[in-house]
């Protein structure tokens, strides 16, 4: 019977070598579970900043995890896990927004509404309403600009890293952030100037 087995007469010629057992704390490196333990909170925060309300953020986070889980084996061993997760989350958000049709034109309408709603600076909305308006405006930004702004503003990513995440040039990454910020300024300047 030809089985894939050692000839027992050679038993002793196969030395049992003890491979170095990694210390337990290092053994997690390169594991999907460890990656999520390490960066999950940060990515969830990012998803909340992008998708706003709770269930949308949960969906975005879940979708990010699913994509990462399926693709994890194809990830190079020395890849930057953190940036990889940001990239998956950003792309998922952007393509979702494109598919579900929340598009740029809303900006201008919204901007007009905002301007029209408070023609008199004296009747400016109180601070909480203003924040809500800012949130709405940010939510209506083109998704790439929004991702770029959130990364630059709240995750301390530089333009080279943002460019890596958005598959764009550094100049385009910076332009996205600046455009978003200038739009916000344009929409809210009349309420924010002291």
């Amino acid at each position, binding site marked *: 019977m030809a089985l894939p087995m050692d000839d027992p007469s050679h038993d002793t010629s196969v030395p049992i070598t003890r491979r170095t057992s990694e210390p337990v704390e290092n053994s997690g490196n390169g594991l999907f579970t460890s990656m999520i333990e390490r960066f999950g909170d940060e990515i969830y925060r990012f998803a909340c900043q992008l998708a706003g309300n709770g269930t949308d*953020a949960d969906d975005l986070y879940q979708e990010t995890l699913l994509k990462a889980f399926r693709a994890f084996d194809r990830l190079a061993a020395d890849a930057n896990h953190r940036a990889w997760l940001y990239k998956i989350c950003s792309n998922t958000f952007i393509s979702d927004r494109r598919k579900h049709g929340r598009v740029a034109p809303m900006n201008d309408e919204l901007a007009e509404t905002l301007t029209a709603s408070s023609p008199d600076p004296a009747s400016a909305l109180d601070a909480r309403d203003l924040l809500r308006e800012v949130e709405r405006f940010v939510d209506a930004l083109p998704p790439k600009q929004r991702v770029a702004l959130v990364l630059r503003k709240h995750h301390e990513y530089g333009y080279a890293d943002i460019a890596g995440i958005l598959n764009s040039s550094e100049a385009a990454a910076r332009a996205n952030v600046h455009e978003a910020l200038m739009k916000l300024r344009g929409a809210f300047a009349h309420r924010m100037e002291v």
Partner: protein
Amino acid sequence: MRRHDLSHRTIGPNGVSKDFDAVTFPDSTLDRLMTIPDSSASTTTTGTIPSNLAGHAANPEVDPCDVAEAAMPDLVFGDLAPTDEEWVRDHTIICNYCANVLSSLEHVCSSLDECADAAEQRPASRRPASSLCLGVPEARYGFMETPVGDVLIATSEDGVVEVSYLDNTDTYDSLRDLERRGYLVYQRQNHIRPVIDQLSEYFAHERRHFDLPVDLGGVSEFTRSVLTATNQIPYGNVRTYGDVAGEIGKPRASRAVGNALGRNPIPVIIPCHRVILSSGAMGWYTGGPEIKRALLGIEGIHYGVRQRAAQQSLGIER
């Protein structure tokens, strides 16, 4: 004073400003994602941050306000060099328009911070569990020293999922295999206590049968049937690969049975060491022949180191 014109702004077909896609790569796929560079290697943003603002503004063809306004987002993010920041600040002292732009930009930034703070308070501790997100079970693992070397043990809600000999497998490889089988892996030594207890009793000759459910998730159907049949071989008995093949109704599949047993994720507990060659020779074993010899020895079946055990003396049940 005229508004600054964003010269790099692109206009979409319907006249609406759109994302800056002009210089981006084609649609990203997951394959593209694999090649993301290490960000720590490229943290400098200076390539696109304007510098020598005073010099640019001194150019008579240029409106200094344009220079100042274009640099303001960089200023509020702290990206400008100190001398350039100083120039913009100085400019806003003499230019009321630019002072207003900067002031409202700073307000926008602090509003964004407040929005982020508010958003953060909402979900802080609500991150959904990974196993729920992915719809996959968790495996809790820990370690044990045994007379046949250190082993990694993992259990799920449903039973024991893994026992691996660390003398010839890296911890990482074992855990990654578990993830490939569809488990998320968490180190929880206390979860594997019952397994450790029963294994200790087995190695001390105090236990002949494991009272532990096994979880063969992620194992192929054929391998599962082989392992299930193998699990029926009583303590202190041996079968041949052909016996097991016959047991699962595939009498000609003894080679495949050998391969399947080689993939037994739960050795010792699923006693693949009790399966030997039809010649009576011990045959191959995942953890190495020394371990097979030791386990069989515990159960009263003794193989010499170099000697072929006499089949007759084993009383192999055919």
